């Protein structure tokens, strides 16, 4: 389904690429596909409608930059608006209050509250050096308090002793009292899962909020949530006033549209992402990462942006001239490696390109990353100027010397030289592209990565 979607969008954007300007009808056509993409990514319908209307407005007015194709321009507007709506920057937890600072965790049944409570506690204790206390107010789900006790143990965070039969609001008061006496900085209060339409339980949690006045009230929601996301987040926000959202199961293969829905309907920042069952699997929210995921295609725009940032224009021009003449030497190759590294290494670069999930996995598996790029640079760095300009002088003993200098095996040197030969062939192709006056496009950049570096 995911791939079909990419293709569909790809087809529309492909058509747009060949046209001169960004016309209203083009935008409308592209946005029809974006609408479907968003719905299939589980963005709630009302939010999708609003989104499309606003993007339409923006995109049609927008002038197409000279260096970008109309299709890329639409993607960029869609993406930028997505990021804007998701909240351009990541927002941390607000802990500015008199200690002990309560953090209240709320959400539907099974969304990941207890796990997230323990993750937050562990992070604040380990990373922020806070004295953290955990308490479970879940008296409904069997063994829920025991679950938090065990997780607290795993996290090395103390938990409030369990008193059987005590009501949630009393547990909350007792937790705050105990924390005050024992000098804790932060108290993370885990609550029972509840439906947003369960009046009695929503009142209960509102009463808890009133009793402890939390400085953070976090809605923990499943990233796999569907259309109901607006109802859930909307109702929780209406009843108890949220300050942030934590999305769990980001490690799944869902597209995460709920992030946009919940953000749009509450206006609350998404503060944290749960990326696994283990307690250290907690990350800060990065809008553009989620935006790319929701959109379901590699982030071409940011590739272009990054390329523009990192590739010095003069340098590129000089290189292009050399490609055209077939004069690509090892100095240029070292420069390429440096550039790739600055662009986030190969996996970083590949992550930006659509349709390379498989290659990405292979890269991850082969650990072809930064370290490899640095090693390649080191090998070239151990050569003399003359060697770099003409590899034909590199006999066995020179290669041995270079290997020694770079701290690698002689096979590594040989492999690099082989790659160099293949890359220079590749470069000539890019050179031809350059000749057509297109400059360094994403496609030509993709060609810079020699295919033999992906294990077959």
């Amino acid at each position, binding site marked *: 389904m995911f791939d079909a979607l990419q293709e569909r969008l790809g087809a529309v954007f492909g058509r747009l690429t060949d046209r001169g300007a960004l016309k209203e009808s083009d935008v409308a056509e592209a946005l029809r596909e974006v609408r479907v993409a968003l719905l299939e990514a*589980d963005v709630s319908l009302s939010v999708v409608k609003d989104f499309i209307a606003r993007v339409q407005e923006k995109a049609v007015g927008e002038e197409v930059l000279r260096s970008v194709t109309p299709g890329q321009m639409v993607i960029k507007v869609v993406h930028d608006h997505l990021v804007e709506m998701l909240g351009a920057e990541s927002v941390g937890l607000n802990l500015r209050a008199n200690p002990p600072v309560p953090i209240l965790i709320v959400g539907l*049944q*099974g969304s990941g509250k207890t796990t997230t409570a323990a993750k937050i506690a562990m992070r604040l204790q380990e990373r922020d050096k806070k004295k953290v206390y955990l308490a479970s107010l879940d008296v409904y789900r069997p*063994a*829920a308090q025991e679950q938090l006790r065990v997780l607290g143990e795993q996290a090395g965070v103390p938990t409030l002793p369990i008193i059987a039969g005590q009501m949630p609001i009393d547990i909350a008061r007792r937790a705050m009292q105990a924390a005050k006496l024992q000098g804790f900085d932060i108290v993370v209060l885990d609550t029972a899962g509840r439906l947003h*339409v369960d009046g009695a339980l929503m009142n209960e949690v509102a009463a808890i909020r009133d009793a402890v006045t939390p400085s953070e009230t976090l809605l923990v929601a499943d990233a*796999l949530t569907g*259309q109901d996301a607006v109802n859930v987040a909307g109702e929780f926000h209406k009843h108890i006033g949220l300050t942030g959202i934590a999305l769990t199961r980001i490690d799944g293969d869902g597209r995460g549209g709920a992030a946009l829905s919940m953000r749009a309907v509450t206006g609350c920042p998404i503060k944290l992402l749960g990326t696994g069952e283990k307690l250290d699997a907690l990350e800060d929210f990065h809008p553009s990462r989620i935006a790319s995921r929701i959109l379901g295609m590699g982030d071409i725009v940011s590739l272009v942006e990054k390329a523009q940032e990192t590739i010095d224009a003069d340098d590129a021009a000089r290189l292009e001239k050399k490609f055209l003449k077939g004069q690509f030497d090892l100095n240029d190759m070292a420069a390429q490696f440096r550039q790739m590294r600055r662009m986030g290494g190969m996996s970083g670069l590949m992550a930006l390109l659509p349709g390379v999930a498989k290659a990405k996995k292979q890269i991850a598996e082969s650990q072809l990353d930064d370290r490899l790029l640095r090693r390649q640079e080191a090998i070239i760095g151990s050569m003399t100027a003359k060697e770099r300009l003409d590899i034909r002088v590199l006999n066995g003993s020179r290669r041995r010397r270079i290997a020694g200098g770079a701290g690698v095996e002689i096979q590594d040197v040989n492999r690099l030289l082989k790659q160099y030969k293949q890359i220079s062939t590749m470069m000539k192709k890019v050179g031809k592209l350059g000749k057509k006056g297109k400059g360094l496009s994403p496609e030509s950049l993709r060609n810079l990565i020699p295919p033999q570096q992906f294990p077959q």
Partner: protein
Amino acid sequence: MAEAAKRTWLGRLRQGLSRSADSLSQGITGIFSGRKLDDATLEELEDLLVSADMGVDAARRIVSSIASRRIDGNAAADIRRLLAEDIEAILSPVAIALEIDPARAPFVVLVVGVNGTGKTTTIGKLAHLFISQGLSVSIAAADTFRAAAIDQLKVWGERAGADVFAKDVGADPAGLAFDAWAAAKANKKDVLLIDTAGRLQNKTGLMAELEKIVRVIRKQDSTAPHSVILVLDATTGQNVHSQVELFRQACDVSGLIMTKLDGTARGGVLVAVAERFGLPIHAVGVGEQMGDLRHFDAGAFARALVGAEEPESA
């Protein structure tokens, strides 16, 4: 009593629906009165289905089949009834209760699914159901991973009156299932329910662990597991497709149960899943209590999905 419970459930479903689909329903009512099905109307219908998590493709298919038909009478109500009928026709063939074959004792039911969907609770409910039918039930606590999962299951075992076979945290789930089968056999249990740890379907290592549980159980009884139930959360959106596909690949899912239909989520993805996989839908979960399990009523589900009135006779 069952009738009353059923009405409550339907009532709750519709109540939830009226909360969440209010604006849409009103939109449709406004549009249909005294008018033909124009493009805008069809789009409204598609929107109604999409917002019930049916997915764009399935929603379009269903709406386009309506588009070609003639509608008379009170358009607003009739169109929804028609929609509901079409959806019911898709779901009826898969509304199949879970039958326990006493000849196969212990009849092995493996319960699988993503984290937090309601597997353990559903096992508690199933145990209660089977015991009320006069069957003896044992439960294997093969979720040896999640904190306090074993304690949680033991509480359910007590509530339902079922034996719980458990080992220590971290024990090998396949080995546990193997031994639980032997114990159930020795104790002449009719049913063995196996609870498993929640897992995301894209984690190949964890899916392989499920495969292993199945393999090992088959060493005890080559016909087991006799049922593999995938528990789905109604709140989940289009990811359900991937869940069904990948769990089916790993462990031959034989039926589905959808939980949390007591909320406002309407579980429309089940319609697309029924079309695509044709897997039986055994039951739905409508609450956290032991009795909150209902047989899957295709007609009621379909009507709740589109906000249609219940027929007078029901």
